[in-house]
């Protein structure tokens, strides 16, 4: 059987060559392998340049100008580093960055703790664990637009289920607090929804990590009479750590640029309490139409995320090498 498969595989290039139309074979016949490789990847590179690299370079260029997209006929002036200076000295932008940091920190912390705990439970392979895994994954399969609108209703102080559940547990009247309208509760309302939606994603990655730990390591620990607690801290956590860190990286990048959920739930309000950096950027670019300044802000955000992600990836690699 193995021999037969090997024979088929060996013959595959010949068969592919034979099936190449004669006209095409003639045309590419004189090209080197490297040239053919370039021929195939050129469209992809061109597309990448057109939709990723060119806009990035263009945004860098605009960030040094006074360009406004709603005034295409206005004279374009170079303003040097003025846009960067204004962004970095704007107290509203720093408040938005603090709001973003608060949101990223708490969502990652909660999602990692709950996600890992769920993965640890699911990994016990109890009866019906496959069914419960699917059930837990449902929130992350939903569209953020659906989730946002759905939770707006849940948080409604007069008819919302969330307020009634809190009221049932604590005895506080349901209409006496507003999750989306209160300055102190609104940031937490978004953290709750994001955690509800994306904890399954973290759980899935952690589960992959837990399942990758070979059973014989635990068996050896059992032989050495290591306690369950000791096994958890000395085997499970270190070996699952690269996966946990990967989940944190993905969620960190995603939540740093969080836009849809915040826009749907609070629109950045009340006041500017939940105005994360991406919403400030959107307002600057598409409501205030200060395209040059918005480009500078976008570049600063990009550099910040890129820099942090790079440092993090290096740390991740170090953990993996241990």
């Amino acid at each position, binding site marked *: 059987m193995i021999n037969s498969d090997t024979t088929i595989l060996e013959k595959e290039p010949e068969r592919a060559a034979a099936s190449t139309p004669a006209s095409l074979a003639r045309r590419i016949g004189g090209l080197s392998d490297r040239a053919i490789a370039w021929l195939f990847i050129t469209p992809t590179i061109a597309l990448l340049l057109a939709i990723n690299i060119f806009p990035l370079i263009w945004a860098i260029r605009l960030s040094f100008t006074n360009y406004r997209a709603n005034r295409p006929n206005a004279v374009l002036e170079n303003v040097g580093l003025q846009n960067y200076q204004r962004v970095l000295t704007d107290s509203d932008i720093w408040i938005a960055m603090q709001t973003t940091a608060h949101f990223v920190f708490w969502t990652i912390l909660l999602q990692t703790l709950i996600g890992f705990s769920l993965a640890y439970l699911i990994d016990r392979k109890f009866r019906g664990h496959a069914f419960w895994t699917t059930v837990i994954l449902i929130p992350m399969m939903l569209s953020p637009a659906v989730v946002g609108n759905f939770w707006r209703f849940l948080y409604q102080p007069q008819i919302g289920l969330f307020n009634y559940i809190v009221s049932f547990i604590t005895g506080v009247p349901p209409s006496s607090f*507003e999750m989306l309208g209160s300055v102190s509760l609104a940031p937490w309302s978004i953290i709750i929804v994001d955690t509800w939606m994306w904890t399954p994603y973290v759980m899935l990655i952690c589960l992959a990590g837990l399942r990758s730990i070979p059973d014989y390591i635990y068996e050896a620990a059992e032989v050495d009479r290591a306690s369950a607690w000791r096994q958890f801290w000395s085997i499970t956590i270190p070996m699952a750590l690269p996966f946990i860190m990967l989940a944190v990286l993905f969620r960190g990048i995603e939540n740093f640029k969080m836009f849809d959920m915040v826009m749907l739930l609070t629109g950045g309000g009340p*006041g*500017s309490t939940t105005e994360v950096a991406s919403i400030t950027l959107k307002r600057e670019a598409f409501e205030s139409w200060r395209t040059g300044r918005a480009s500078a802000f976008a570049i600063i955000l990009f550099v910040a995320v890129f820099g942090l992600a790079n440092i993090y990836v290096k740390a991740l690699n170090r953990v993996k090498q241990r």
Partner: protein
Amino acid sequence: MKTMCRPLLGATMALGLSTALPSLAQADELTLCWAAWDPANALVELSKDFTAQTGTQMKFEFVPWPNFADRILNELNSGGKLCDLLIGDSQWIGGSAENGYYVKLNDFFDKEGIKMSDFAEAAVNAYSTWPKGTPNYWALPAMGDANAWFYRKDWFSKPEIQAEFKAATGRDLAPPTTWDELLETAKFFNGKEIDGKKVYGAAIFTERASEGITMGATQALYPYGFKYENTTGKYDMEGAVNSEGAIKGLEAYKELYKCCTPPGYTDAYMGETLDAFKSGQAAMAMNWFAFFPGLAKDENVGGDKIGFFVNPKQATAASTLGGQGISVVANTDNMDGALAYIKWFAQPEVQKKWWQLGGYAVHNDVLNDPSFKDSQPFAADFLVAMNQVQDFWQEPAYAILLQSAQKRFHDYVVADQGTAKEALDGLVKDWTEIFEDEGKL
């Protein structure tokens, strides 16, 4: 060679036909862009007459209000050809005139004998001119509108409620005529149980994302004496935007929000105030006149159950301006058709029918008609409001100016941050920076 030529010829012909067909279709077709709301449906009805008279098919692009500015301004900025005609917000006129998005209509009006003196002066000034108050016309007044109030007339008429109100305040229960009375009335109704249901004092605008809270707060600021400038055209805002009166006005709006709005009312605009009123939660509510024909006909709260009143005065009488003019988009491929529509729409008979269908005509033949005041329960209030309207900045930079106002007002009124004075001082600072960037200061 022959076999190659045939497909090539066929492809060329197909390409030629495919590019010619849209042009043919466009010649007798016009696309009119506006917001998606009640008056837009009336305009569809009205425009059937234009199609019958000219054979020009009308297409409509109606965008929901929260996305209206984003969608249409993007369209104009990108040089798109979606709209031949646009009923755009009054604040857009400065930018659209200066950026060449609208066609200047002076020569056309002169040629066709369309006189701006045939329309209400306040409407012409607000919806048509740029620079403000000069005879440079970029639109024909299409839809007069202002922010006003409606209330539960049936609740106000209940003898037991009237007696209770008299005992509590010492005056008769009636639609408020001052902001002090408005606050007092809202507080009286707030939390009261009527027909077995807890009700609230007033539903007002608090929306953050687009223009909601600014349109609501200015309804209090203007009567208390808020001005944009000390001297028109000088951008000298210190002492006008943050005057003593303006501070009191903003405090009054916050007081109304804090005391008397339904729970969860932190991000509410047109739809939410209508919902609060129609569901029997609010004794009073603010909204644009444009919605009043629909409210008056509403099965549950319309008819005898609803009453209307113009924005209460305080130091002065004032209302926040809404409404729009109709402009020809400079990028249109059907300039003649678009201008023909404007000419048709300006006719007094068409304007009369526009009012009958639910549109707010501001043609003097309609407004000065002796039967006008009694034609609708809110018609008299509309006349009063249109004579006392004040509009937000109509500068090319209006969008940035509006965003600053939205932030400052929402931070103070809804998020409880700082004082009214700090909010208005901050607004002066923001607006000064914007006008400096614009080279106007």
